[in-house]
């Protein structure tokens, strides 16, 4: 037995030395070849549109206000993840787009596992033309760094939608910039924030808070009444980071959200700003006053949300999808109260940290013309209200949806996010390593393992490493 193992180990070691480079290089090519062979039936279509698109990207697509003037032909493939927002809107908008472009063969790649299913094609350089970036295993910043997305900066300067409106002008939140360039456009406008049950507050005589002092006062009363004031999702600390910490950093930075953009751009000085420490100290206040439910650290979002719905806890940091997500479990009479941020001073502006999902065109798309036309098609007011109605979330297009059939909390949220007194932080994706470091550090902070200064030290160490 021992001998066999040893020989096996030796054999493997020998193979390590000899085989890897030769064996696997070829296998990769196989993969790529197989994928491209199976999924792009028309190589002829792939050559011509991309040539024409690269030759005259701005004229062909954006100069003409209605995309239908240029006849779109060939195949056009759309990858969309199906998650919390469902696929009703995608089905509808694709059907509409098909109707408007009868000569275009639209191929749908949709589903809850599509990000994994299509991964070999992105690796193999044969991606779909258009991608909706949402769900697990798909990260916009990483895709940009990997050079997989088409640079839309120039095109967007003049691009108009099918109604003739300039797309950049009608977006509620601006696209994220990577070194000044734009690769993806936010489609959804959702917001992080703090929830409570209005009915419970009324019953117990607590005041619904509008700023941090009121929040602390209310929490004192809540605790005195035997209920834990605050629960969060410690297993996934991006909830408390997104709904509490990031808005707090902005509030403490005189409502200037560029600090978060600097942080996302890995500028160490931004992390060392006093605003970051002040925001972390607000978490420390909650911790030291015993407002944070001890269960938080180990539970996931479903468990924390259930405890919140069962009135074990009064406040929860979460996103506007919460009422929809828990629709089946919301007790009778539960009335969601919501504020995008709770860390501002009395009289300060509310800060809304948006949560979004974006759309982009693959750099190696074979039908960029159709993809751009599709962008012009979906970023229109008609599709915006349709999105709100079918997906249960506000769309990223400015406009009044009060007359649409969207659910009430979506309309409320949209109102909040378009209010001139709300500071709306445009979508930000941190580097995945830095993001994880911040999540771990926040968790450690809430259980008294580290100090705010150590939080900053830990995170800046990772930022320094990532910069290299």
């Amino acid at each position, binding site marked *: 037995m*021992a001998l066999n193992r040893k020989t096996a180990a030796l054999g493997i070691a020998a193979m390590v030395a000899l085989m890897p480079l030769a064996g696997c290089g070829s296998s990769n090519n196989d993969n790529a070849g197989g994928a491209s062979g199976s999924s792009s039936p028309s190589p002829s279509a792939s050559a011509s549109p991309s040539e024409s698109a690269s030759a005259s990207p701005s004229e062909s697509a954006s100069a003409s206000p209605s995309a239908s003037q240029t006849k779109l032909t060939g195949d056009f493939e759309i990858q969309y993840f199906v998650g919390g927002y469902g696929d009703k809107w995608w089905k509808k908008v694709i059907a509409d787009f098909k109707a408007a472009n009868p000569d275009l063969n639209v191929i749908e790649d949709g589903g809850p596992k599509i990000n994994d299913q299509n991964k070999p094609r992105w690796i193999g350089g044969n991606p779909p033309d258009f991608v909706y970036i949402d769900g697990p295993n798909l990260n916009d910043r990483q895709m940009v760094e990997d050079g*997989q997305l088409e640079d839309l900066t120039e095109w967007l300067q003049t691009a108009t939608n099918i109604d003739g409106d300039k797309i950049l002008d009608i977006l509620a939140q601006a696209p994220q910039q990577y070194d000044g360039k734009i690769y993806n456009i936010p489609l959804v406008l959702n917001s992080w924030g703090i929830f409570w049950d209005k009915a419970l507050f009324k019953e117990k005589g607590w005041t619904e808070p509008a700023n941090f002092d009121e929040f602390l006062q209310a929490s004192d009363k809540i605790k005195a009444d035997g209920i834990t004031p605050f629960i969060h999702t410690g*297993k996934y600390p991006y909830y408390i980071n997104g709904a509490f910490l990031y808005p707090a950093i902005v509030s403490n930075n005189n409502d200037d959200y560029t600090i978060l953009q600097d942080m996302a751009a890995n500028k160490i000085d931004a992390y060392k700003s006093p605003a970051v420490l002040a925001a972390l100290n607000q978490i420390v206040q909650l911790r030291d006053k015993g407002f944070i439910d*001890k*269960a938080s650290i180990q539970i996931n979002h479903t468990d924390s949300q259930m*405890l919140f719905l069962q009135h074990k806890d009064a406040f929860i940091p979460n996103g506007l999808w919460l009422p929809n997500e828990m629709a089946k479990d919301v007790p009778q009479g539960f009335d969601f109260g919501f504020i995008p941020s709770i860390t501002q001073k009395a009289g300060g502006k509310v800060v809304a940290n948006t949560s979004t999902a974006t759309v982009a065109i693959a750099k190696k798309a074979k039908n960029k013309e159709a993809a751009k036309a599709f962008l012009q098609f979906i970023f229109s007011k008609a599709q915006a209200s349709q999105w709100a109605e079918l997906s249960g979330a506000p769309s990223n297009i400015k406009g009044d949806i009060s007359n649409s059939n969207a659910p009430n909390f979506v309309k409320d949220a949209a109102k909040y996010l378009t209010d001139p007194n709300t500071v709306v932080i445009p979508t930000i994706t941190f580097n995945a*390593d830095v993001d994880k470091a911040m999540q771990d550090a926040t968790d450690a902070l809430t259980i008294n393992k580290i100090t705010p200064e150590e939080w900053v030290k830990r995170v800046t160490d990772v930022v320094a490493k990532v910069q290299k």
Partner: protein
Amino acid sequence: MKPVTVKWQRNLFIGTFIVPTFVFFCIFTIYPVVQALYYSLFDWSGMSENKTFIWFDNFKDMFRDPIVWRAVGNDYFLVAGKIVGIMILATFFAVALTRFNFKLAGFFRSIFFIPNVISVVVIGVLWNFIYNPQIGFLNAFLSLFTKEKVDIAWLGFTSHTIWMLLPPAIWAGIGFYMILIIAAIQNIPASFYEASELEGAGQWHQFRTITVPLVWEQLKVSIINIMMTTLNGSFVIVWIMTEGGPDNSTQVMGSYLYQMAFRQYHFGFAAAIGVLILVLSLITTIVLQRLLHQETVELS
């Protein structure tokens, strides 16, 4: 002429079994291992078309990463804890159910085996409920004995949270090894025990001098198997219960590999962790084989 054909037929017969197995082994074991070794030499996000060959930089980074060391420590903690816990309990149950003739032995044998039929994922979820600070069984039980309601976050300590993963892991493992040892004990001729009884040996003495030496081979296999399945498979229970948290305190090599490959987009680095798991498993197996080597007692 004839002997050659017979020999050839014999080889053909053996070949029909060995060749397909070998081919599958190469495709599903050797090839992925080689592939992992290959990727561990690259800086690759796991999604990009381009990989950069960086020699052993992933390994250098790995040895500088404190979380990797913590993960290795946690893995070996689980290995040691599971070997001690499972072997003591499984042997105890096996002896109890075979050597002390009591009526409900069959019933208990089934009861102890049940956790093995349940998927580890279900076990993880189940124990998450037991450990839940608000609505969990453990705190509710402890609250029976205290005035104040107990609200310990069992999976949320600032350190040593890995200890809490040991009970579910042991609980899930006992049944299989118990059955293995029961089978071995039942192979020992009853006359050995009868003879020793006539000589006046007590149960403990019988256990030490008859049972253990004669089931040593099974105990050895059990220990090595626990070690290998833990190093390679502790990922599941960790990922279901804590995802390596809080603050990486329950990270094991497998969970950190997953985290790095699919959450933080360092596929090459993750492959390097995979290589580390392979190497450590091989070394530990060889070391354990040596340590447990003992003259096998043959029954004749």
